[in-house]
């Protein structure tokens, strides 16, 4: 098996007073970008660190292709991880930072130059890390993650510190990676970014799974709470026709805003009552609304 599938099963991490991650289970498939979302303190970073064998779980397992990270042979040839923006010795050059990783993993040193080129850091390769901007540091982190040509990429808040151009560059890179059939798991609190980037979503709050599925599925799962705007020449008659099931309020321009009833039912009711309908618009909630709805009340500081 080498489909790069990540399986998190009953993963739990208990610190002295908090259950940072609490019986978390989800699956990440290859060939897709999976957004790992949650409010600050939801346990995203702890989960990713357990996946990469940096933090020991209190209970549960996290595997990649059915194998724990610690049991992978030469793990960076399978999994590339970016966990901290500023993770190199300040007095060391970017090139040497990457060469050390090559050396430790038994990869030819020339690979360091290749990944530098890939992330566009070649001109700064021999500059010391302390002179790098936040965006350059992030690019160096991505370069380090790509050294082993991994089948799985795990990124913790990679967009932090990147300028808009950098974000776009990274988005294209990750999409291309997933397009090659590789697995990309990327945590973020930037919902707008995930809406553009991710195919699947795993949403957690307070260390527990809230929902998981494709972006469309997740949005649809609460689309029933969406609103429908209706424009009609006879609002009073239509309101009466909708009956008890609908909650109707006045919108702008004399429109009606209906909740608690989907657009088809509203249309049918209007037809049955003989009320003309000039416009019938369902406002689908965007990811941000869904996210806020799903994690409501769980973002409290624990």
């Amino acid at each position, binding site marked *: 098996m080498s489909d790069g599938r990540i399986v998190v099963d009953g993963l739990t991490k208990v610190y002295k007073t908090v259950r940072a991650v609490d019986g978390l289970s989800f699956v990440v498939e290859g060939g897709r970008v999976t957004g790992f979302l949650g409010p600050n303190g939801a346990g995203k970073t702890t989960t990713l660190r357990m996946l990469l*064998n940096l933090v020991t779980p209190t209970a549960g397992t996290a595997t990649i292709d059915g194998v724990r990270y610690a049991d992978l042979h030469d793990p960076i040839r399978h999994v590339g991880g970016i966990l901290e923006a500023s993770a190199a010795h300040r007095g060391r050059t970017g090139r040497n930072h990457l060469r050390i990783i090559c050396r430790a993993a038994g990869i030819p040193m020339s690979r360091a130059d290749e990944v530098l080129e890939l992330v566009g850091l070649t001109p700064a390769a021999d500059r010391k890390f302390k002179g790098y901007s936040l965006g350059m540091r992030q690019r160096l982190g991505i370069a380090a993650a790509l050294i082993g040509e991994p089948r799985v990429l795990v990124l913790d808040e990679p967009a932090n510190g990147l300028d808009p151009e950098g974000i776009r560059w990274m988005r294209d890179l990750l999409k291309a990676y997933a397009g090659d059939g590789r697995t990309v798991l990327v945590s973020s609190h930037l919902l707008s970014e995930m809406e553009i980037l991710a195919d699947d979503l795993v949403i957690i709050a307070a260390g527990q799974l809230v929902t998981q599925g494709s972006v469309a599925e997740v949005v649809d799962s609460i689309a029933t709470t969406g609103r429908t705007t209706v424009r009609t020449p006879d609002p009073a008659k239509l309101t009466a026709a909708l009956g008890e099931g609908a909650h109707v309020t006045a919108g702008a321009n004399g429109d009606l805003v209906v909740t608690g009833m989907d657009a088809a039912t509203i249309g049918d009711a209007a037809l049955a009552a003989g009320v003309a309908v000039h416009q019938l618009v369902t406002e689908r909630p965007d990811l941000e609304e869904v996210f806020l709805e799903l994690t409501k009340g769980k973002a409290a500081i624990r």
Partner: protein
Amino acid sequence: MTATQVAVPARRGHTPGRLIAAEIMKIRTTNTWWLLTLGIVLFTALALTVNGFGHHFELYPPLDQVGEANRQDAVTQAAIAHSAAGLRGIAADMLTSGQFFGCLLAMLIGILVITNEYFHQTATATFMTNPHRTAVIMAKLVAAATFGALFWVVSTIMNVVTTPIYLHTQHVDVSLTQWPVVRSVLLNLLAFVMWAVFGLGLGTLIRSQIGSVVTGMVVYLIGLAAVTIIFHLIYNAYPHSWVLAAQVISPAVASQVMINPGRAFDHAPPQWVGLLVMIGYTVVFGGLGVWLTRRRDIS
């Protein structure tokens, strides 16, 4: 397992060798190593100067400046210094010049090898590249010991070049290749290596770079004085020679005892006791470092 997608050529070298090479590269690619080496050169030069003057006055006490009462003592001291054992001691002392601060710097490199990973947040990358933490710590241990040994090489080259010239100027004739002298020089190597390993263990124990450097300095510098004072106070209340000998439990005292072919101080235990104490500290701190690193979370 995945093998098809990897365009990177097959792995090179066996894991321990790769890890040690990577750890040595980490030291080589920052300023630390040459700053510390510069420190070794300066401290060795200083120690040679101080030791040279000290032994000169030991061999040739300025009798006209010594009071009438002490003259006989001074003459006796000089005679002892000129004896075969005395000259042997002087030769060994000159050839191990710079040990005191050299071992301090060896300890520092041991501390830095591990605390740099936490200070610069590179522990994540290091343990992701190789999740077998014992192997990583052992590689660090070898790298620190290697640099400890290199410091000894630098210091010893300076001593070997200078000491024969110095002894010639003092008009004394002593073989530098006699075993007790050579043994001291070799045990000095062991001291450098052990302090480097001791530093590594300390660094894993106290991951804060400043915290472990300060603690190491205190143990090394103030610890020596404090132990001397405390044991002399105990000795005054309870005058048995073994009380003074027991000072060897301090690592700084133990390494002095270890390299000194004579007695490092009155009632000092023999060299092998110092050696055993140093080995004990090395094993305990090295083992503690491995154990702690295995069970701790990297965050």
